[in-house]
């Protein structure tokens, strides 16, 4: 969990038990994210910050605005979703991508055809850009295929940051220095801007993974990275997310989850593949899309 905001709590904004429950249900329906009673303090603090930042008079006033003003809802989602990540996080899955998954996928395609990779949620872009850098650096067939990389997230502010492609030293801590020098430029405030061409190699879009109307726009995805998000969902939302990802995948495509997550406990639709680097989940039907 992130360190708490050092600002003192404003005494006027108090969230009652009933309001907390209303908010929790509302947030769950919109995002699939579940807050437990143990997270009450965290939720109250973030919610108070949102109410003050938006200039609302209190919870009832702000809640009404959340229902009618999409931009307030976006701001709230941004405050509550954890967007901290870094380049080359869980590198073993990137290694699995180039050592195993892409070879299997391309064995059923003709050279020059497209390969679609989807990072969802992509937060501020570190993951989809990592995929691009990893492929450029580690896959000798990178020029033989039309590789499409898509980054999606529910948080539009995170997506704007992803498109801007400006990162702190901290985001780059795991990326080898020669790659930082190759793909980034230091800007005057000491941050790093990603190479323009690399920025153009990833397509960003807002997608809520539990909303079929959103995910339904994406089809024939060969590899999905959906890491460390399902842990925030309850069983129902996890199942919905898994079904939606399944529908977006090409037959024979693969989904990679975070290292603490397991699709076997969520959905029976996928085949479990145990590769040397990682356990990944395959949509049955390899070869159908040949």
């Amino acid at each position, binding site marked *: 969990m992130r360190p708490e905001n050092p600002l003192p709590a404003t005494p006027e904004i108090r969230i009652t038990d009933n309001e907390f429950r209303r908010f929790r249900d509302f947030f769950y329906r919109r995002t699939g994210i579940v807050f437990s009673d143990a997270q009450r303090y965290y939720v109250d603090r973030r919610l108070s910050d949102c109410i003050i930042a938006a200039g609302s008079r209190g919870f009832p006033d702000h809640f009404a605005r959340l229902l009618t003003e999409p931009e307030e809802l976006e701001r709230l989602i941004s405050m509550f979703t954890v967007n901290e990540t870094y380049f080359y996080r869980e590198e073993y899955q990137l290694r699995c991508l180039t050592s195993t998954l892409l070879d299997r996928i391309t064995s059923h395609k003709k*050279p020059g055809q497209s390969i679609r990779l989807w990072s969802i949620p992509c937060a501020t872009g570190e993951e989809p850009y990592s995929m*691009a850098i990893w*492929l450029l650096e580690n896959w000798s067939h*990178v*020029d*033989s295929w039309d*590789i499409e*990389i898509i980054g999606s997230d529910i948080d539009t502010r995170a997506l704007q940051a992803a498109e801007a492609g400006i990162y702190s030293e901290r985001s780059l801590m795991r990326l080898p220095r020669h790659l930082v020098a190759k793909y980034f430029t230091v800007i005057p405030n000491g941050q790093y801007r990603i190479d323009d*061409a690399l920025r153009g*190699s990833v397509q960003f879009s807002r997608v809520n993974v539990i909303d079929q109307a959103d995910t339904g726009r994406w089809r024939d995805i060969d590899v999905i990275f959906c890491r460390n998000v399902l842990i925030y969902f309850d069983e129902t939302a996890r199942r919905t997310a898994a079904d939606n990802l399944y529908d977006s995948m090409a037959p024979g495509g693969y989904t990679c989850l975070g290292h603490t997550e397991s699709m076997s406990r969520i959905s029976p639709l996928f085949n479990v593949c145990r590769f040397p680097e990682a356990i990944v989940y395959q949509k049955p039907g390899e070869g159908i899309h040949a």
Partner: protein
Amino acid sequence: MPDHPNDQPAGRLTRPRVLVVDDGTLIRLYYREALEAAGFEVGEAINGIEALEKVLSERFDLVIVDISMPKMDGVSFLRTLRGQTGEAGAIPALVISSEAGEQDAAAARAAGANYYLIKPVAAPDLVLHVAVLTGMPA
């Protein structure tokens, strides 16, 4: 650094300029990174039409062309390029194809390709061929 005569573009006196023509964003980036690291200056185009506009308005010492592209493919581009009068029509062309078929190679040669490679092309191989075709000392 020598002075540049007014009628001579600055790039000619410094680094050979290569135009990479491919519809794959990541592919262009891959070739560009390899060539820039080896001292070439690189331009990019996403199809034959955009490439024609570039070679007619800027000076390039070599074009690297993918065969399969939307709008205007590599072979059509080469035919049109070779039909141009002046320096643009004579720019050396390296064709890179995803297909190992003889048909593509023959079509590329007939359209005016100087050399033909099959993907995947490793970065050192690309640099070597580009250096030879541009007359750049290795």
